[in-house]
């Protein structure tokens, strides 16, 4: 990794980290769903600061260019994040369905009770 690339990466990572923290503080993002992003950023930060770690790991796994290891790691993390989102959406869509049905049935019951009074 060249020095310029490392500096650019570090700046980008720090900016993203600050943005996430800011959004979480302002309650625009739920920590629950942002945690995986923060961990991704921390891991990327470590390997950018200490490229030696990256070189050792990439050599063991058999990746020639350490920077490719960064891309690979980022890709794996992003897949994990997307999986988490898919499962969160599935759960929420079920919860919304249950709530909608419950609300509609209650409204119907109240309406019927008023009519019978």
């Amino acid at each position, binding site marked *: 990794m060249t020095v310029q690339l490392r500096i650019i990466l570090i700046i980008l990572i720090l900016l993203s980290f600050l943005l996430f923290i800011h959004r979480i503080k302002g309650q625009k993002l739920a920590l629950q769903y942002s945690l995986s992003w923060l961990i991704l950023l921390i891991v990327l930060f470590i390997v950018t600061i200490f490229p030696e770690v990256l070189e050792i790991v990439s050599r063991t796994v058999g990746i020639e260019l350490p920077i490719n290891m960064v891309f690979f790691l980022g890709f794996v993390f992003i897949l994990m994040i997307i999986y988490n989102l898919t499962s969160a959406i599935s759960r929420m869509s079920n919860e919304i369905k249950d709530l*909608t049905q419950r609300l509609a049935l209650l409204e*119907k019951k109240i309406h019927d009770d008023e009519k019978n009074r």
Partner: protein
Amino acid sequence: MKNLIIIPAFNEQDCIKDTVEMIRREAPEFDYIVINDHSTDGTLNVLVDNRMNYINLPANLGIGGAVQTGYLYAYENDYDTAVQVDADGQHDPKYLAMMLDAMKNENADMIIGSRFIENKGFQSTFARRIGITYFTKLIRMLTGATITDPTSGLRMGNRKVIELFAKDYPRDYPEPESIVALLKRGMKIKEVPVMMRERQGGVSSINLEKSVYYMIKVSMAILIENHRQGGKK
């Protein structure tokens, strides 16, 4: 015996009144409930103005979620049977009494009104019939049961079916998948011949571009349902 007709309605302002009046006239021994699936047209006004029996969903749930609301209503109000009838007038309510008799005589858990026993009336389009035949074969391969019209929306279930569907019902394109769910739990499904009309208004929920999604989704759902052991959740 308390019998309920579930009528899911999404943007059916033009035909819902006729459908309900026809039901009152031709199937007086049945109660009915219209489930308004957050229609964006005047469906709700028609329901209110004509003092119909309805449930109004505050968000659009799609056909599966709407029909399930009807099963929940049937479950909570102690109905013995519940039957789905489309709001668009495809299904003739004169068949309902016959379906109820068939359910008693055959001791079945579900009765399906099938277009393909006598092959009379509106037979759907050629492409759709190919799809329907495919599902019939897939279901027969997996469960051994022959359902000639697995996509029919005209279905009557007993208390056991009501209870199951109130708990667990597919969100979209629910018919073939829920048939497999019943068969896997050892329930008995019988079909009776009916004639269906061409829809009198509205559009089918399945257009050309959605049909690929439909085939893949329903096939996957059937295969997954087939490997699920009874009583999930």
